[in-house]
């Protein structure tokens, strides 16, 4: 496998989106603080993207569960059926960056954690957008589908397999600034990781296989069957 590629993504805060998201107009007594946090975050947040080209060696089955093997690493999950017939995949990690992880909010307004969450979401969105462009520029995949451990219901592709996914990058994965807890929680929290791939035969969206009817981030309606 080739070495992973690491990209720093320029971060530009969308002020209107920020103000709308935090209901800035109601914060008559905390507007200065909300802007101060934005200024700090704009200097410290450092979105990054890491990706690597990889090839599936074998498609297997464990009972009814599809398995793919990449070198010594194996992934198991119903979602992997979307990779049937696929050979080339692009494992990736994209993050808002770790620049605000040690920033102490305790002296700030009680809503400051939410303001920061919005700023980190913006940084991740820009990393995600850059990831798509890079996938096209570097690998010629214009309409990349994405599979992510932990996205969708638990049996779709268990979140624990993020550990194996990170192994695909080797020790270089530390350079992206995302660490995995023992319970497979990505830190910083505004980080995503998964496999990009092209498959004209399927139209996979992990969100479609998650039962949370009222999820505010739902992109497509729930589908009971993969």
């Amino acid at each position, binding site marked *: 496998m080739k070495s992973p590629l690491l990209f720093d993504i320029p971060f530009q805060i969308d002020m209107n989106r920020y103000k709308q*998201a*935090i*209901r800035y107009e*109601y*914060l*008559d*007594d*905390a507007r200065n603080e909300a802007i101060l946090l934005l200024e700090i975050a704009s200097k410290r947040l450092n979105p990054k993207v890491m990706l690597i080209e990889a090839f599936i060696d074998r498609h297997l089955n464990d009972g009814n569960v599809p398995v793919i093997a990449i070198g010594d690493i194996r992934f198991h999950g119903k979602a992997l059926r979307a990779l049937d017939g696929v050979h080339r995949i692009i494992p990736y990690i994209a993050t808002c960056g770790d620049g605000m992880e040690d920033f102490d909010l305790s002296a700030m*307004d*009680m*809503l400051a*954690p*939410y303001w920061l*969450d919005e700023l980190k979401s913006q940084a991740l969105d820009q990393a995600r957008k850059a990831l798509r462009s890079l996938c096209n520029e570097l690998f010629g995949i214009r309409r990349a589908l994405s599979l992510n451990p*932990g996205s969708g219901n*638990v049996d779709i592709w*268990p*979140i*624990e397999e993020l550990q194996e996914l990170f192994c695909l990058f080797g020790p270089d994965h530390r350079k992206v600034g995302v660490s995995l*807890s*023992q*319970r*497979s*929680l990505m*830190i910083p*929290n505004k980080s995503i990781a998964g496999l990009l791939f092209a498959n004209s035969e399927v139209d996979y969206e992990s969100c479609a296989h998650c*039962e*949370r009817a*009222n*999820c*505010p981030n739902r992109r497509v309606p729930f589908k009971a069957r993969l």
Partner: protein
Amino acid sequence: MVDLKALSEAMQSGRAKDVRVLVQAAIDEGIPASRILDEALLSGMDAVGVKFKNNEIFVPEVLVAARAMNAGMEILQPLLVQTGVQSKGTVILGTVKGDLHDIGKNLVGMMMKGKGLSVIDLGTDVQTDRFIEEAIKHDADIIACSALLTTTMREMEHVVNAVKEANLRNRVTIMVGGAPVTEAFKSSIGADIYTPDAASASEAAYKVCTERRKA
């Protein structure tokens, strides 16, 4: 004369500065702190909860309303303590061991406070024993556990078992919530109440506490 309805509306729309001014004015006029709490702040948060459940408003509106309520409570709290106004119940709240998510948990805490409950928020990555220690220390009615990962929600079962081992099972109601948690999961681990959102959680907690006090 301060209009408590206007105070409630200021709170619902998140105008913290106005809430501070109106609460102080109401106190200065001699309106009892408990009346300001019940008729303006708690009733205002009730209305916010209903609108949230009906998708008329969303998380950011709830947050600014909770912040405005907090501004009013900072002024009212010392008076409520002085006059011996009792909390409607006590909830020990936290995100379970191994999990660092707190946005949803904090929202639950704010909405429970909006029901007049005392909320002891233990934060994130809370060790099982800590839930028990704090429940005993505060003579809590409820332990409410949050988890956002399938890998951490199993910790809730440890909390249920620890409550049993501490002989608190008949005294403490265990509530669970978080993205991967379901009614079936709640039943499988022997917890008492699952709620899918913050507004339902606060209503369920309020019901548990008021029924316990009536009994």
